């Protein structure tokens, strides 16, 4: 069984969080991120949306909905940007090249669900990529912060 929660660090510029591969665990991460980014609530909401979308993809598709896998999330405030890393041991998958973009201009009848989560990440983050390292997926995100 994998527990959920923040890893204690002495650095207030860093949030390290571990969660079980369970959709219900994402709300707890969201609370921790909201507290960590309390000075910038709008950015906290945008970061939480991106984390939720990427973690939901990993849990439902990477782990086929199975709980019991640990996913590590870290947020680091570095000057005027925020660095985010999501690390999991699911099979290799790059959402930024393998997920088809949604047709945002389709009429209701033609609109098909899917692809919106990755679209949100592309829209809200300033940099996003997947690195495959030591048998793990590492999704790296970067968000510029208002000066």
């Amino acid at each position, binding site marked *: 069984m994998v527990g959920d929660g923040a890893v204690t660090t002495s650095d207030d510029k860093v949030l390290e969080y571990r969660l079980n591969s369970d959709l219900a665990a994402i709300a707890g991460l969201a609370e921790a991120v909201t507290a960590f980014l309390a000075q910038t609530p709008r950015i906290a909401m945008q970061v939480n949306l991106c984390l939720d979308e990427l973690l*939901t993809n990993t849990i439902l598709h990477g782990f086929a909905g199975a709980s019991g896998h640990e996913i590590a999330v870290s947020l680091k405030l570095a000057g005027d940007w925020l660095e985010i890393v999501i690390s999991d041991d699911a099979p290799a998958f790059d959402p930024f090249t393998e997920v088809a973009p949604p047709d945002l201009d389709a009429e209701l009848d033609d609109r098909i669900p899917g692809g*919106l989560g990755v679209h949100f990440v592309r829209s809200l983050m300033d940099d996003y990529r997947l690195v495959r390292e030591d048998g793990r997926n590492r999704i790296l995100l970067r968000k510029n912060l208002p000066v």
Partner: protein
Amino acid sequence: MAISTTLETLADTSLLRASGRLDGSTSPQLEKNLLPLLAEPGSKVLLDLAELDYVSSAGLRIILMAAKRAKQAGGRFVLCGLQPQVSEVFEMSGFTRILELAASVDEGRGRLAG
């Protein structure tokens, strides 16, 4: 963190109020409570999101299904009371153009009466 829904019936309109967090873990509950309201041909449904703090693409999927079902069955589906952070997600998705949105329950009821 979860979602809760309450249902009222106003004349010929079903008013479903959703509050809390609409994400991958809670969207099945909205699906179960919302979609049956649109099963009857010509159904009118107003979904009040004034107390909804958060929506992800998993929640938008259910809302898209509801809008399609309403159209297919000759019914009406109107959403109202979107908070700014929820509205931002609808806008990024292109949903503000394909869905019927109202500012308040009263405005939504007015739309459905018309």
